[in-house]
């Protein structure tokens, strides 16, 4: 091998050998040196940064190499601690979510929570089974109500807050810009005199042409307000075939001194979709803005007509007016039309397809009473009682006076809190007054297929919960109820409705021998056949205008 190595190469080899030997003696130092000068050992980089620690630490060890290593160690340790902390938190929470018992119902939302699904291969292959497991897991988190409140509190930070009150805007700001949709829409006088339309376009034209939006300066003074106070029955269709509503609406009711609610200083505190929380006249209000779509009126009317043709009973339709008409300041209205204008529109479109129970006039006469909740979307039973008096008159049945009921008042927490999770609503209880009928009756509850009946009180007071107060009226909307009364009549009433009607049913126990209450959203059978099979003499179709002109109205079609 020596033949192939000259002196210079040998010298280099020796140098390498020597270096290796040194490395074995001081491996740390060698490693550091290697890192410092890998290519050009004669031009070692100036360890400027590394020299600084030398001044403070006069150790023999080469500090330039130790300092970064120490830093790296610290950094690595920090990463490991970070992983341990994060992983511990994740695993502890994961185990806690499995071990801690899961709630089955929510006191806050007043509903039963999702249940663990039953397995079937069909459900599995469609993805429904796994979806329901996810739903169960997410819906039944332990302490869910507390977490939801915490989430709501966090969301409330998104707006500007002064003290305990969240100031997020003033409705008075609507004066900025053009006065068109928001403020003028609700101040439209209700002067609709068109007969039932013959085509799709005519109702719009008529209402738009004949109900011109007054300018702000034209807005009538509250003391006079001639247009706004025009009783709606003057506006109903003067059809040749006089509708029962016109004949039965109590003429003796005095013209209401009622004006479209208005409060330019109303202060919106929170809005999520159509849910709204606001201050009006220093009182905290909450509710749901009107959201009906009058384009659905023709469809709804056709559906009602279809139902009428299939049943052997008198059909009544009651568009239920909510707090949107009587409480919510008109300045907050979101759409072009209001609940009141749309209810009149719907009545016109329906024409004689059903006997109309227009409760506007009656309710307006009592608008200064507590007929609606301040912070719940429903009406008080008092409002329902007044509204049902119109129906009783139209149907020609007995209707007991208010003082025949046992009246009780309790605290309640409005459902708007559930929908908005707005903090200020959490403790904002209000009075809930209900009326227990004095006559005798029994109530059977059925499931959505009209099966599995059981008896239970009409108004189970023992189950009362302040944050689920509306369940006092016939437990839950998904049950079909059959009430058998001691009323001295042979008439049978079937009610097809949404949940507003629940408060009104106790007012009818002296009026009909049998009453069936069906929430159209929770019915799986043919309602028309049901009506005929059960010998109904009267059918009351009652729902809010929003629902009639929205999805709920379409359920009727399905039920036929």
């Amino acid at each position, binding site marked *: 091998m020596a033949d192939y190595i000259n002196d210079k190469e040998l010298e280099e080899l020796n140098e390498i050998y020597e270096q290796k030997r040194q490395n074995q003696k001081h491996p740390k130092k060698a490693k550091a040196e290697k890192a410092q000068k890998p290519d050009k050992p004669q031009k070692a980089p100036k360890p400027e940064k590394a020299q600084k620690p030398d001044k403070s630490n006069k150790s023999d060890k080469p500090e330039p190499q130790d300092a970064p290593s120490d830093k790296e160690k610290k950094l690595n340790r920090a990463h490991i601690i970070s992983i341990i902390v994060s992983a511990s938190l994740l695993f502890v929470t994961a185990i806690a979510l499995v*071990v801690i018992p899961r709630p089955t119902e929510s006191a806050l939302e007043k509903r039963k929570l999702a249940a663990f699904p039953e397995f079937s291969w069909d459900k599995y292959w469609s993805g429904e089974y796994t979806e329901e497991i996810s739903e169960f897991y997410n819906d039944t988190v332990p302490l869910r109500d507390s977490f939801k409140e915490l989430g709501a509190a966090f969301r409330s930070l998104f*707006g500007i807050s002064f003290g305990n009150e969240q100031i997020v805007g003033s409705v008075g700001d609507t004066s900025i810009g053009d006065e068109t949709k928001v403020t003028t829409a609700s101040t439209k006088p209700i002067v609709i005199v068109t007969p039932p339309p013959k085509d799709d376009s005519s109702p719009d034209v008529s209402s738009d042409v004949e109900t011109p939006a007054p300018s702000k300066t034209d807005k009538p003074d509250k003391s006079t307000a001639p247009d706004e106070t025009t009783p709606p029955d003057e506006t109903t269709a003067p059809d040749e075939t006089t509708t029962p509503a016109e004949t039965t609406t109590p003429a003796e009711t005095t013209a209401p001194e009622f004006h479209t609610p208005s409060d330019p200083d109303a202060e919106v505190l929170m809005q999520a979709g159509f849910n709204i929380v606001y201050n009006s006249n220093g009182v905290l209000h909450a509710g749901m803005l009107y959201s009906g779509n009058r384009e659905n009126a023709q469809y709804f009317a056709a559906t009602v007509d279809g139902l009428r043709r299939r049943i052997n009973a008198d059909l009544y339709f009651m568009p239920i007016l909510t707090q949107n008409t009587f409480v919510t300041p008109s300045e907050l209205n979101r759409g072009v039309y209001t609940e009141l204008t749309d209810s009149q529109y719907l009545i016109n479109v329906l024409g004689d397809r059903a006997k109309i129970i227009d409760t506007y006039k009656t309710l307006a006469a009592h608008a200064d009473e507590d007929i609606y909740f301040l912070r719940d979307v429903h009406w008080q039973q008092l409002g329902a009682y007044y509204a049902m008096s119109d129906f009783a008159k139209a149907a020609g049945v007995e209707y007991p006076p208010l003082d025949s009921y046992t009246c009780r008042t309790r605290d309640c927490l409005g459902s708007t809190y559930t929908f908005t999770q707005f903090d200020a609503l959490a403790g904002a209880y209000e009075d809930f007054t209900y009326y227990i009928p004095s006559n005798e009756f029994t109530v059977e509850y059925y499931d959505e297929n009209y099966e599995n009946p059981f008896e239970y009180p009409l108004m189970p007071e023992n189950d009362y919960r302040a944050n689920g107060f509306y369940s006092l009226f016939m437990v839950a909307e998904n049950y079909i109820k059959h009430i058998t009364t001691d009323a001295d009549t042979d008439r049978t009433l079937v009610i097809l409705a949404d949940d507003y009607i629940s408060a009104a049913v106790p007012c009818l126990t002296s009026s009909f021998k049998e009453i069936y209450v069906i929430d159209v959203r929770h019915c799986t059978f043919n309602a028309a056949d049901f009506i005929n099979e059960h010998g109904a003499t009267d059918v009351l179709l009652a729902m809010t205008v929003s629902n009639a002109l929205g999805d709920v109205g379409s359920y009727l079609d399905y039920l036929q």
Partner: protein
Amino acid sequence: MVFADLLFLYVFMPVCFAFYFLSKKTLYRMVFLIASVAASIGAYFLGTSLLDVTPERMLWISIVLVLLCIAFWLLNLFFDRNIYRNIVLIVFSLIFYAWGEPVWVFLLLISVAVNYAAGMLIDRFRGKKSATAVTAVALIFNIGVLMGFKYVGFFIKNINAIASLDLPVPPDDLMPIGISFFTFQIISYIIDCYWGKIQVQRNPFKLLMYISLFPQLIAGPIVRYSTIENQISERTSTPADISEGIARICIGLGKKVILANNLSTIVDTLFASGDLGALSVTGTWYGVIAYAMQVYFDFSGYSDIAIGLGRVFGFKFDENFRHPFISKNITEFWQRWHISLGSFFRDYLLYVPIFGKRRQYLNLFLVWFCTGFWHGANWNYIIWGLYFGFFILIERMIGNKRLKKIPLAVTHIYSKLVIIIGFGIFYFTDLSKLGIFFGNLIGANGNPLVDSVSLMNMSSNCLLILLCLICCLPVIPWLKKKLGELSKSDIYVYGRTAACIAIFLMSSILLVNATDNPFIYWHF
């Protein structure tokens, strides 16, 4: 299954991590096995007592769990670490995909099998015409599957409209989740194989793992095979990787749950639940700005979670977003927005001379048509793609040098206007509403300048909007720059961990009862 879901965060992810990082040390393995079996038995009692599952069914579930634990334990015992980890990832990826739509797992497997065979054939016939033929067949198969599931309904609807026919239209929900993403990954694999840029994957399970890897399976980013080719066979996760991966997951989750979800409430209030025609000029602009940010935080949040999960598992995915809203022009915007899609079209469509010498403009048109169409089978997406293509073409014609001479304020205003209006086109799938939207922007519908609902909404969300605007900016890089050496220190890691845990917990709280929480790009 989606990332922003408690079941994913607190069941799927921890279990997957536990199996993935199962130590090779015998003692740990024994402890893990015993713990797993104990947990499975415990699940029986929990299921029967708390979940009201029948004892018979729960017994079967527990037996399956025990067998699963033993299977993983044996795999860990006998296989090399990377092989074991790949098996874990494949199993969990298939469970992840099957959770949403079990049937489509078979489509995914068939697709992988076909493309595995195609890759092998391309390699075998390399340099011959047969390789080109195989590539063409594979591309036709992949694009055919995508077209079949995603676009057939669109074409039939248009044919029905044009020819006044009444051909049956397949339902919209027939599309497998994430088909656009995994199809594009497969296409990139096949083309790169054909071009010889990558070595063909001879192990079908590794190819399956690449395609089905759950972090990027259903909503991207579109990870090229070449990016993770080496990591599929051999990868390591250092503590820094895992720690930073976890931080990235938390940030992504926060973007989705805290920002995007709440922005969607604003958008829904203004655009979906109200009367669009009555919305004011200010409200329309406010809504579309909120929507632009919602899409950004939604999609970039998903990408962050995907990149973070990949990092935890030892993969280094490319970035998919680089603060797109700071772009000075539209060309730059698309270099920062959905980078994996942009680079896919650039590499596989723009630079391929389909139209010969005139490719510059025609290819550009094709690329932006495809970009729009890829997002959805609807005309508004096509308009959206061509809209951006138009501005990019204009910018090309002006040239980079001239563009740079334009004052920054002008370029920023121009780019933001184009981007934001673009998101309006993206939102309104109904073209009549899109027309109303355009009218609203300039008050052409007789709509007022402001309306109370928009003002209320702005006020009640002003801090959220401010936070979102700040988060659109490169805050973290700026912060790191300001902190200098401190950003590489342990103190920074501790601070980041604390912040990320806070974000994770708050996101979890906001997810309680939030069952309908899909990402916007989920169905693309």
